C-alpha cells in the first residue's frame, strides 16, 4: 500500500518519539511556534517567500495557514526537529513518487516543499 504524505510524516516523525513523550501537536501551536519550525526547516526566508508566493498564485485554495499547518504537521511534535526534517525529506520524495508536484515558473516541486514555503509567506502576511 502506498503511504501518502501525511502517513509518512506520521510514521517517520511520530512513531517512537510520540509514544514516549506526548507533547502538544504542532497544529495546535501558536503562529510564532510555526515560524520557529519553519525557520529551522527553511533557512532562507527570502527564497521561501518567493517560492511560496508563486505556489499561492498557482494554488489559491491553500491561502490559509491553518489549513497548511494541518495538512503538513497534523499530529507532529515540534520537539524533534531533526526527525521532522527527515520526515519532510521523505515526504518530499513520496510526493514525487506519487506525482504530487506543482510547476512554479517551470520548476517541478513537491507539494510539501511548496506548501512549506507558502506558510512562510502567509505567516508574514
Amino acid at each position, binding site marked *: 500500500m502506498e503511504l501518502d504524505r501525511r502517513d509518512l510524516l506520521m510514521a517517520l516523525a511520530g512513531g517512537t518519539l510520540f509514544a514516549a513523550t506526548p507533547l502538544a501537536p504542532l497544529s495546535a501551536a501558536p503562529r510564532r511556534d510555526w515560524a520557529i519550525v519553519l525557520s529551522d*526547516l*527553511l*533557512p*532562507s526566508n*527570502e*527564497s*521561501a517567500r*518567493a*517560492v511560496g508566493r*508563486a505556489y499561492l498564485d498557482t494554488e489559491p485554495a491553500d491561502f490559509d495557514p491553518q489549513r497548511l499547518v494541518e495538512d503538513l504537521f497534523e499530529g507532529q511534535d515540534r520537539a524533534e526537529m531533526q526527525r521532522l526534517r527527515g520526515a*519532510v*525529506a521523505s515526504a*518530499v*520524495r513520496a*510526493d*514525487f*513518487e506519487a*506525482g504530487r*508536484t506543482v*510547476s*512554479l*515558473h*517551470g*520548476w*517541478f*516541486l*513537491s507539494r510539501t*516543499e511548496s506548501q*512549506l*514555503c507558502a506558510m512562510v509567506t502567509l505567516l508574514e502576511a
Partner: protein
Amino acid sequence: MYVDARSLSDGERLEADLCIVGAGAAGITLAREFIGSGLRVCLMESGTFEMEDEVQALCQGAVLGAEFFPLDQCRLRFFGGSTNHWTGFCRTLEPLDFAERPYIPHSGWPFGAEHMRPFYERAHKVCELGPPTYAVEDWVDGMPAPFALESGRLNNAIYQYSPPTRFGQAYRDELEKAANVTVLLHANAVNIETPAEPDRVTGIAAATLEGKRLRIVARDYVLATGGIENARILLNANRVQAAGLGNAHGLVGRYFGDHPIVWRSGLAVFGEGYPNLEYYCRDTRVRGHLVRGVFLPTEETLNRECMPNWAMTLMEARLTDASEGARSLKTLVAQAEAGELLDGFGTHVLNIVRDLDQLAESAWHRAFDTQIRIYTTRYWCETPPDPESRVLLVEEQDRFGLRRAGVDWRLPGDFYANIVKSNRILAEEFGRLGIARLQVFPDRTPENKDDWPHIQFESSYHHMGTTRMHADPRRGVVDADARVHGISNLHVAGSSVFPTYGHANPTLTITALAIRLADHLKTKQRDL
C-alpha cells in the same frame, strides 16, 4: 560495375531483373543482397561519388509548414545518399512502435518487433554495429552506472553508434566487383512508365543533366530515393493517372513525419552527492562499440499518459544555458562573480530544496569549478501519423521539368504539452531519488510563457511515412511486402514506408527493411 550514364548513347535501353532507383542506405543494401544471386541488378544513382552542386540542386524545394531545414540541405544526392552525413545513432524500434495504439490514430505496422528481429540482426552487420541487443544489462558493465530507476515510469536504455558507416564508401569496392550489379551513375529517374491500366511498371525513363535519355527495363522495380523523393517521383509519374502513380486514394506524400529534437527542453540541477552522470551525457566505448545512455518512458507510462514515444538524455549545460539573462560575456562574468547562474527564481528554488531534499551544496554555487552540475535535457520524439502533414508538389520545376517537392510538416497540437509532461516525469524521478530539481523550458519567462515559437526545435533529417505501409490500400500506399498497392512489380524501400515512427533514428530500420525486401524479391523472382 560502375557505368556513367553520360557515357552511354542517347536513347539507350538497359535491361535487368531488378532496377533500384536510388543508392542510399536502402538501395545499396538491396543491391548488396543480390550480389552473387545470378540476377541482374541495375542500381540507379543521380550523382556520383562526391557531392556535385548541380545534382544536389535537384533536391531544392519549398518549406510550407513547421520550421524545417531547406530541402537541399537535409538530404544528400550522391552515392551513399544521406548516410554521407548521418551521425550513426542507432536503435531498433520498440515493440510498442509496431503496435496499433488506440490513442494514436493511424498507428501500427502490419507486423511486429519479433518479425523484424532477424532482419535487424543482419542490418547490424551492415551498419557495423555491436551485438544486436539494446538491453541495458548487456552493456552496463562497461558503462558509468545509470540511476536506479525503480518507479516503473522510466527505463534506462542505450543507443548504439555506427562508426558511422558511409554506405557509399564502405561498399563501393564490393559493388564494383559484383558481376551481376551495374551501378548507373548520373542517371536521374524522370518517369515511371506503365500501361494505360497501370497495374505494372514497364520501364524507368532516366535522363542525365546533359540531356541524354535512357530507359531501364526490368522485371521488378524499387524506389529507394528517400522519404521526400519517393513521394515526389510517384506524384510526378502522372501521365497515366493525374493524381500520380499508386495514389488512387490520395495517400502518396501524406503522413509525413520527422523527429523533432529540442536541445534545451529542460534544465536540471543536481546535488553533488550523485557521483556520476556520464551514463546520460557521454558516449562510452563498451567492448569496442560506442554507446550512449538515454532515458526512455516505459510502455506503461506511454499507455497511461497516451503519449507518442520519446527519449531524453542529458547534456552538460553551457554557461549560456544556465544564464537566461546573459547576453554578453560581461554579463556572464558579472553573474559568475555574484554566484548567479540561474535566474532569480531558480536560485530561490535551490536555496530551499538543498536543505529540504539533501541537495546540499547545490552546484550553482560552484558552476565555474570543474564539477559543473547543471544539465539540459535533450528531448526527441515521434510525431503521430497525420494525413495533413505531407509532401506535395509545388509549381516550380527542376531541370527535367518535374515539379519540385514542398514539405508541409505539421506538429501535433499537444507537442509542447507532451514535452512538459515528459520533463515532469523525469523531474519526478529525480525528485523521488532526491538528486535533482528540473525546470521545463528554461527559456520561458512570464513575458513569453504563452508564446511557444521561441522554443527552439529542429527536424532530424528523418523523412518518414509518405508511402506508408498498410495491408488496406485505403490506408497505405504499399502493402506489407512494400509493394505499391495495385502495381505488381513496383516496391518502395526506405523510411517512407514507416506507418509509425518511434523515437529511434531510422537508418537501422531502413536497412533491416531493405534486407527483408531483398528476401521477398528473391523469392518472387525465383517463382516467376
